[in-house]
């Protein structure tokens, strides 16, 4: 429990603040519409549904403003860089940007549901009041526009008893934009479901761009002024507390109370979303600008199991260990940017990524590079992004755990440690490394085994055999492989990988591993991916 608190206290604080703000905005707006005199007559027709609709609208504005921020990755990188004096745990929060984006999206869906249901009741109440012939306050209020000299002083948007709510919906700006942006929201959510996103990324990526329709629609949703409150002037001369019960006498010339006059609420959504909207536009322009910078491909290596290594260089590019870049190949797709962890060390004069063929885009890319007779496709790079894993170098003993594809940042880390060691970098405090590599089968990561083999070899040459201790765990073994392993038990190198350390099968027993290491060393730094 204590460990959980240490690791997650900042996330919990951040989320609690966000939820707290949501609750505050909701309750504040709710009370203001439920109690204010300005809406006394409006509430007479609509009841509490007015307050529910307005409160959820306020939260929708707030969350729509927030949702664009976590996806401005260049802005986040900028924050990360400028806040280098900030605690690491603060900067690490920036890595969870997509989780926050999804949480805000769920909140938007929830408030959309509340908002729509409340407005359905509102329209129904307006319709009933318009059709009522019982002479109640509500029905008098509904017929107001027909009697006043100034046409704009109506309260009920349903102007005639024959008008259906469907008709009002599609003839008012609020109604039409509301329907359109809700459909856009539903499409965005269904195409972003994890199953669809992971299996058919293009469907998600292209459909998600209808957020543009959502934001434009949200901005103009309120300009019709369909939510009406009593004007200041009217409140002064005919306050509802004084005049409401005498509504039957409003028509009389000698009555103290005149007909109340109403005005529409001005649109406020645009005020919320304008700033972050502009920030996001800047972000996209910046991504476009950075993508236009020339990327030179210095080397292309084809590894077994359909893995392609691309070594590139770009003017002004500087990276740290554990970071990733976004790559775009215009000849395959103009709009798709895919993230890849950097596998090169910062000390090298190029940066590299290893690409495995797992889907449409990656397969097309690998095929494009395999064409011997056509020129190499142009690559655009944006980045690097991500929190740096430089903490690893601060510990004398480092335990690194890489599972499956998570082994890629460790390629960068191990290479960097090697370079620092070689150049006797004083910042490198690491004396011993325990590296645990867990994967189903090594086929896809044969390039990483080669890296380990060369590191092992160089350690031997330097006589520092115990600097790098690595353990490889294969979880996808069967009796055939195990049989082979037992037969070749006495061989010096492992038959599967050719490394000096033997491969283990199954998952590591962490209790044993950690206690062995803990007994040997007092202070350990651990990194896992």
């Amino acid at each position, binding site marked *: 429990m204590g460990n959980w608190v240490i690791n997650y206290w900042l996330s919990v604080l951040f989320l609690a603040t966000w939820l707290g703000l949501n609750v505050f905005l909701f309750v504040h707006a709710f009370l203001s519409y439920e109690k204010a005199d300005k809406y006394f007559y409006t509430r007479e027709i609509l009841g509490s549904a007015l307050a529910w609709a307005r409160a959820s609208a306020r939260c929708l504005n707030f969350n729509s403003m927030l949702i664009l921020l976590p996806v401005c990755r260049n802005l986040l990188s900028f924050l990360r860089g400028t806040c280098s004096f900030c605690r690491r745990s603060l900067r690490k929060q920036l890595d969870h940007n997509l989780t926050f984006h999804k949480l805000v999206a769920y909140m938007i869906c929830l408030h959309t549901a509340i908002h729509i249901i409340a407005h359905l*009741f509102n329209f129904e109440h307006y319709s009933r009041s318009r059709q009522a012939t019982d002479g109640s306050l509500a029905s008098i209020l509904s017929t107001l526009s027909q009697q006043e000299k100034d046409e704009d002083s109506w309260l009920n948007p349903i102007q005639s008893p024959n008008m259906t709510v469907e008709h009002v919906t599609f003839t008012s700006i609020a109604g039409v934009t509301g329907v359109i942006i*809700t459909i856009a929201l539903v499409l965005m959510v269904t195409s972003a479901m994890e199953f669809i996103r992971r299996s*058919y990324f293009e469907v998600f990526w292209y459909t998600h761009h209808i957020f543009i329709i959502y934001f434009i629609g949200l901005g103009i949703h309120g300009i019709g002024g369909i939510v009406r409150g009593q004007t200041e002037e009217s409140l002064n001369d005919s306050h509802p507390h004084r005049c409401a019960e005498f509504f039957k006498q409003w028509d009389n010339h000698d009555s103290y109370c005149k007909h109340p006059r109403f005005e529409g609420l001005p649109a406020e959504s645009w005020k919320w979303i304008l700033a972050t909207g502009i920030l996001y536009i800047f972000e996209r322009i910046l991504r476009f600008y950075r993508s236009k910078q020339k990327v030179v491909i210095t080397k292309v290596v084809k590894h077994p199991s359909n893995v392609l290594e691309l070594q590139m260089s770009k003017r002004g590019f500087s990276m740290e260990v554990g970071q990733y870049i976004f790559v775009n190949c215009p000849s395959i797709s103009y709009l798709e940017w895919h993230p890849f962890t950097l596998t090169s060390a910062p000390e090298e004069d190029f940066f590299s990524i290893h690409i495995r063929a797992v889907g449409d885009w990656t397969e097309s890319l690998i095929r494009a590079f395999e064409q011997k007779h056509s020129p190499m496709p142009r690559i655009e790079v944006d980045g690097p992004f991500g929190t740096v894993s430089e903490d690893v170098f601060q510990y004398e003993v480092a335990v690194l755990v890489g599972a499956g594809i998570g082994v890629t940042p460790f390629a960068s880390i191990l290479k960097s440690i090697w370079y620092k060691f070689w150049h006797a970098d004083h910042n490198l405090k690491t004396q011993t490394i325990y590296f645990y590599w867990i994967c189903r089968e090594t086929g896809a990561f044969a390039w990483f085994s080669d890296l380990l083999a060369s590191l092992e070899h160089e350690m031997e040459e330097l006589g520092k055999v115990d600097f790098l201790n690595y353990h490889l765990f294969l979880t996808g073994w069967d009796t055939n492989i195990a049989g082979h392993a037992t037969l070749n038990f006495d061989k010096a190198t492992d038959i599967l990988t050719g490394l000096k350390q033997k491969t283990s099968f199954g998952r590591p027993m962490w209790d044993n591993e950690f206690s062995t290491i803990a007994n040997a060393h007092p202070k350990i730094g651990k990194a896992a991916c």
Partner: protein
Amino acid sequence: MGQIEWAMWANEQALASGLILITGGIVATAGQFTKWGFGAYSIAAGVFVCLLEYPRGKRRKGSTMERCGQKYLTRVVKVLGPLSKNYYVRAVLHLGLAVPAGFLLATLLGTACLAIASSIYLLAAFHGEQWTPIESKPKERPQVGGTIKQPPSNPPPRPPAEARKKPSEEEAAASAAVSGGPQENPVLVVDEVV
């Protein structure tokens, strides 16, 4: 874009539309809105759509994540035959189900979403996709009895073919033989475990 299975997205969209239809229907019926009869219809249509769409179909390539508890509904949906398998039929069905709900504001959103799901299903049908149920393979029970084979009938040490009738004593004394079987060991053999 070549490997997209549109039906998978259509399925998510249709499931969402079903839920929206149910919600809109409940609001209209509970609030006793004008024309709330359409609301009651919408609840029924929404429930039907949700039940039909809940079992996810099998992907053409790769493994498919089943929805929680979908295997019970898979059996029912399978029985419906072309209604569930053919996506043209599904597209028309969804469009037909959506239309009546379009007459009421509360369920209008459900209509729009279901109509979009219907058009994505139409696209899927053009691409020749169809719904295949995800069935769990029956577990292969290891036949315990089957792996035990009869011990070899003529185990070593074997005398040379000419002397088959007269087993030589040196060979008999050499190694441990499998017990049982028609071989008769002239000397008592002991299994030594190293």
